[in-house]
């Protein structure tokens, strides 16, 4: 026995530590060891009420994790009793010993509630962190400076009206609306090739929608040679030039640049661009317009001497900021409330008429009474009469299922959308406000997909929030596709809106001469534009319909224009009645009936004193944005209203535009080439 104990003891001492070591090796593999790091906005700063990027880095040193990363933004106020949440989520997969970056674009309109970031795995929260937003919000527009080796000295010389921030390249947004709070983006050449594909697409889309980038030439110009970079800036490098001074800058910002030591500038050529400043035929500042926005290319590196210590830097950057494209984001005249009430009134569900219900009950009661009298009086035929009674009950029960339920109520839920597009001049990019309403009688949880791209979707809160439970907005992103989870109570509605800039490929020219007015419109969209009306010289003209992918040419003689009666605000109601049939029978007519009056009044107030432009508006009886619901058999209705301001040119101008080389027609680019994108976008 003693021998046996002495034999076991060494083994115990040997295997004990070994077993513990083994456990230490195995436990981390089964436990989740995750760390979360984040970057909000641009270097921790965002503008309130504007969309901003949020990048979350997850590092997993444990077992593989598949779950959902959620960001919860809280808005509203307890005082107003309208606190509501927006949850942005994303599916994640983190293998063992991995580190991944997940990019969200979120809207924060209140800094009083913390931002919550959490990682969930099948409803279990693995990790959660909250962020106090108070030190992160900014009131000024932001100017992110992106690139390597940016000094704080450079930041200090940027204009005071904006807030410059140094931002790492990898934390730039992956959606175009992530730049919502950005005034100007200063992007060093070295940062261009570090951009991820989605970042580059987002940047390009932002520029097309009115964004403004200033980028620079560098000794290391390899980034410009990459094919994907050329989509943003198609630069051809012709070489370097060694110079001592840049006197041309004096004309640009009031101070020239000279240096005792020679320095290099990049000699380049950029497609579809104009040189704003040249030095000995070498373009120094080149501007490339991309639809509504522009990219400015500097032939020198602003971080290198002598530019880094040039005394004219402040005025130079002031001038650069002044070059920002002016994008007039059209305001939408209709009140949100008016649109929503019109959309709800257009729901094609109806109760059966009272008289039908009364007749139904009366017939049933009479039949039951007759049978009761027969059953009560004649005992001999009770079996037969009871079977008659049962037959009546069955017939009326079946009838009540088919005759009396809600008309079209079986299409539950249903949705409708209203798209307001405002186009200015010949710009292919138009301001767009898309409102979609989901209605349900039975209530439930639904999912809406808005197509393969991300959109800046926000909920529209009910007006009386006291007694109505405010459901949160849940936006789930997966591979760049958004799905919105919507929970609706019985007999209620939910509304969402997307305020953005969209491509609307429709072209038009209007010119006038001694004989009258000529209107030429080319509709490149696959939908007809119906009931087009034109407001010009204080008069309203009907243009009829424009076929899908069709043209409209209308000539109005001077006599016709002068004979047409002047627009009278007092008679707007009668005018609307003459345009829209009564009672309205379709969703389009309901919307026309409700909105036309306000539209005409607004158009008249804006254009009655103008003869240099006409206002055209027309309706599209279709959904321009395709919506998919997870429930089958749901048919929604969509209506779009196009408002378009077209400049009126004289016929001489028109002829010049057609014949004189170098004169830019609406569909031409600044370099004079025909813009091929107009057709490609359709």
């Amino acid at each position: 026995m003693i021998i046996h104990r002495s034999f076991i003891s060494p083994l115990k001492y040997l295997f004990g530590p070994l077993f513990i070591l083994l456990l230490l090796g195995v436990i981390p593999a089964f436990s989740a060891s995750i760390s979360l790091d984040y970057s909000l906005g641009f270097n921790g700063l965002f503008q309130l009420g504007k969309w901003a990027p949020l990048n979350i880095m997850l590092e997993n040193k444990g077992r593989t994790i598949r779950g959902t990363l959620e960001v919860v933004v809280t808005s509203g106020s307890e005082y107003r009793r309208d606190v509501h949440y927006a949850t942005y989520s994303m599916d994640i997969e983190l293998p063992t010993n991995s580190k991944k970056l997940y990019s969200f674009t979120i809207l924060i309109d209140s800094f009083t509630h913390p931002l919550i970031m959490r990682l969930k795995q099948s409803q279990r929260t693995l990790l959660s962190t909250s962020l106090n937003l108070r030190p992160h919000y900014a009131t000024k527009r932001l100017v992110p400076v992106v690139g390597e080796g940016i000094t704080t000295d450079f930041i200090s010389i940027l204009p005071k009206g904006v807030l410059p921030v140094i931002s790492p390249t990898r934390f730039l947004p992956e959606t175009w609306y992530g730049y919502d709070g950005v005034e100007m983006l200063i992007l060093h050449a070295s940062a261009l090739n570090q951009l991820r594909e989605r970042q580059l697409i987002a940047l390009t889309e932002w520029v097309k929608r009115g964004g403004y980038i200033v980028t620079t030439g560098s000794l290391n110009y390899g980034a410009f040679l990459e094919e994907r970079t050329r989509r943003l800036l198609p630069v051809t490098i012709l070489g370097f030039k060694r110079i001592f001074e840049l006197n041309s800058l004096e004309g640009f910002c009031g101070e020239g640049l000279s240096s005792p030591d020679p320095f290099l500038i990049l000699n380049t050529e950029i497609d579809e661009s104009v040189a704003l400043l040249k030095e000995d035929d070498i373009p120094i500042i080149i501007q490339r317009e991309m639809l509504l926005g522009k990219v400015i290319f500097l032939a020198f590196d602003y971080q290198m001497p002598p530019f880094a210590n040039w005394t004219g830097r402040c005025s130079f950057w002031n001038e650069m900021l002044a070059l920002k494209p002016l994008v007039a984001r059209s305001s939408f005249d209709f009140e949100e409330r008016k649109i929503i009430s019109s959309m709800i009134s257009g729901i094609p569900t109806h109760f059966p008429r009272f008289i039908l219900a009364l007749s139904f009950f009366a017939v049933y009661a009479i039949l039951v009474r007759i049978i009761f009298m027969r059953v009560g009086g004649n005992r001999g035929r009770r079996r037969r009469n009871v079977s008659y009674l049962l037959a009546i009950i069955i017939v009326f029960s079946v009838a009540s299922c088919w005759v009396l339920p809600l008309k079209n109520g079986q299409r539950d839920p249903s949705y409708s959308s209203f798209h307001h597009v405002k186009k200015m001049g010949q710009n292919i990019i138009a301001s767009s406000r898309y409102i979609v309403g989901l209605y349900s009688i039975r209530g439930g949880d639904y999912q809406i997909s808005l197509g393969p791209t991300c959109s800046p979707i926000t909920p529209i809160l009910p007006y009386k929030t006291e007694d109505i439970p405010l459901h949160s907005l849940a936006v789930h992103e997966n591979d760049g596709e958004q799905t919105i989870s919507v929970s609706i109570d019985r007999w209620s509605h939910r509304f969402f809106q997307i305020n953005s800039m969209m491509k609307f490929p429709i072209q038009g020219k209007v010119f006038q001469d001694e004989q009258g007015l000529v209107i030429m419109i080319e509709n490149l969209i696959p939908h007809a534009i119906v009931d087009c009306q034109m407001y010009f010289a204080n008069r309203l003209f009907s243009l009829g319909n424009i076929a899908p992918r069709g043209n409209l040419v209308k000539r109005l003689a001077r006599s016709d224009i002068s004979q047409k009666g002047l627009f009278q605000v007092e008679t707007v109601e009668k005018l609307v009645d003459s345009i829209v049939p009564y009672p309205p029978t379709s969703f389009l007519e309901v919307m026309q009936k409700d909105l036309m009056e306000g539209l005409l009044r607004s158009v008249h107030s804006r254009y009655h004193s103008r003869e240099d432009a006409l206002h055209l508006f027309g309706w599209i009886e279709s959904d321009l944005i395709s919506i998919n619901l997870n429930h089958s058999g749901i048919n929604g209705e969509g209506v779009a209203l196009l408002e378009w301001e077209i400049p009126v040119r004289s016929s001489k101008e028109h002829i010049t535009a057609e014949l004189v080389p170098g004169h830019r027609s609406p569909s031409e680019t600044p370099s004079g080439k025909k813009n091929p994108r107009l057709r490609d976008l359709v």
Partner: protein
Amino acid sequence: MRFDYLTNDTEKSLAPFFSRRMLDITFACIWILGVLLMILWPLKAPSHFISEYRVPLLFPGIFVAALLIHSYINLRCGRGEMSQDDFLARFERKKVITLEEEHEYFSYGLVQSLLHTLFLLLLMLPLLIVSAAISGISLPVFAKALSILFTTSLLCRLFGFLMYLFYGRWSKLGYLWTRMFFIFSIFFTGFFVGPVNPILLIYSFHRGVEIPSGFPMSVYSLYIMIVACAILLLTLANQAMVRHNMHKERST
């Protein structure tokens, strides 16, 4: 059980299906529900209700009315207040051995109660369907509401019969107990034990919200379970009482 028993409208039947009195009361019930249906009929468009976040009151109105009427009639039927009697019987307080007392409860009284409760519910069915269809009530919820109506009414009927067996047809105490039971089960439970109140349950169906039951099951399941247990207990009690009375009758 013979069909003739069901159609027997002599004083031997506690609740004669087709006696003139029963038929008049049944028709009055349909008439009340019909008038209520017309009063609550929504005259505004569904879009008005959706925009205001309001739910039409047709479903809760008709179903609660049907619940009250149906349960009360069954309570009275169970206690024999609907049986045919002559004018003098009320003064004489004549004791009549009914068919329900002559037969085993399982083979006659229970089957008759089930069939009569179902028959009365069937007569209301078209009006109930209309109210549910107009209010956009789904089929599963409609079936649940119907089952609440049926079980509650059956419970009242069985309790009424138990009181009949205990106190007889002419007892004031029996009358009082049945009314107290009706008021307690239909109304007072709402103040003390919400989940077992049928009116609150119908209201929760109407609002589309779930009342917290405090148990790992839905309120509806809890209600049905409790009522089913009560029905089972009352059935056993009734059977025991009927058998006891039958033995007593034979021995005398």
